[in-house]
């Protein structure tokens, strides 16, 4: 009998690919944001509205992750920004190898901001480093104010939380202060933006947050 201690990280390979993405993006001065949420909370709509507002001032590109179809990439392509669709064929999250592959296929010359729309899922994507600078969690009012307590890991690893669909607040019993308190218990450092991607309400501070972090177009 013999026992060996190896202390080997199970996600080591993913972490190595993430490091390659990070190195590439650091070299080219690209800010990478990884968007996490359940399906239907409004990731693609937020991207459409954000791109429409920001693309004249900042060079942006998008990686779309979905279990099936390239519909979201088609929606983003209408904004005339570079976009690549990753279809995971059942996979519940993006991993860094997929992102590195997508990055190598894109023309990112001049791009300063890269959004990654992860697969809609509040559990699995939280464990996979994609080489991003910030994870951004999106929760929509229709999902209820208990989501931080039910999916704490995702709120813990994120730096920014977008509360979307605030236009629906009059019709729901979503308690905004309770949501904020729940999320802050898990992650006291979270930055919040309350927005409606549909009406555009609340988007200004979010856009300002983005623009303060990237180099504008020359």
């Amino acid at each position, binding site marked *: 009998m013999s026992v*060996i201690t190896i202390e080997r990280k199970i996600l080591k390979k993913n972490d190595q690919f993430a490091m390659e993405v990070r190195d590439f993006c650091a070299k080219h001065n690209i800010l990478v944001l990884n968007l996490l949420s359940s399906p239907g909370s409004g990731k693609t709509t937020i991207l459409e509205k954000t791109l429409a507002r920001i693309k004249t001032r900042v060079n942006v590109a998008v990686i779309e992750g979905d279990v099936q179809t390239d519909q979201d990439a088609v929606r983003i392509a209408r904004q005339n920004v570079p976009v690549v669709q990753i279809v995971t064929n059942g996979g519940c999250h993006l991993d860094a190898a997929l992102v590195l592959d997508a990055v190598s296929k894109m023309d990112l010359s001049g791009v300063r901001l890269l959004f990654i729309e992860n697969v809609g899922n509040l559990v*699995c994507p939280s464990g996979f480093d994609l080489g991003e600078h910030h994870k951004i969690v999106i929760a929509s009012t229709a999902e209820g104010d208990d989501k931080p307590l039910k999916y704490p890991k995702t709120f813990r690893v994120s730096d920014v939380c977008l509360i979307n669909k605030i236009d629906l607040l009059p019709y729901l019993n979503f308690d905004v202060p309770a949501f904020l308190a729940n999320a802050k218990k*898990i992650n006291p450092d979270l930055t919040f933006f309350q927005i409606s991607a549909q009406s555009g309400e609340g988007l200004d501070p979010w856009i300002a947050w983005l623009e303060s972090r990237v180099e504008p177009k020359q």
Partner: protein
Amino acid sequence: MHETGLAQEIVNIVEEIARQHSPKQVIRITLNIGEMVAVVPDMLKFAFQAIVENTPLNNARLEVQIIPVTAVCNKCRKSFHISQFEFSCPYCSSVDLTVRSGDEFLIKELEFKECP
């Protein structure tokens, strides 16, 4: 669910190390999984069993040690266990903490036996 992919990753790593120790056989694999890691140990074991069936790793037992989330308060310097993802000091309520453990996801140990 991603447990199947993770189980495959574990098998790949262990097979590679086992090859270096051949002809000894792996009889135990011990994982450390932090409480903050979004992995269900039973699902991981189930997936592992399915993958290793009819392979040399079929006799290896997958053991999981859960590592609690612990932190030290940067204000009152006390250490404590964090439950329910409540990241504040139970003694002084400060949220200025340094997390010490609970994020691990690794293969800690392998046990071998000599081939008969």
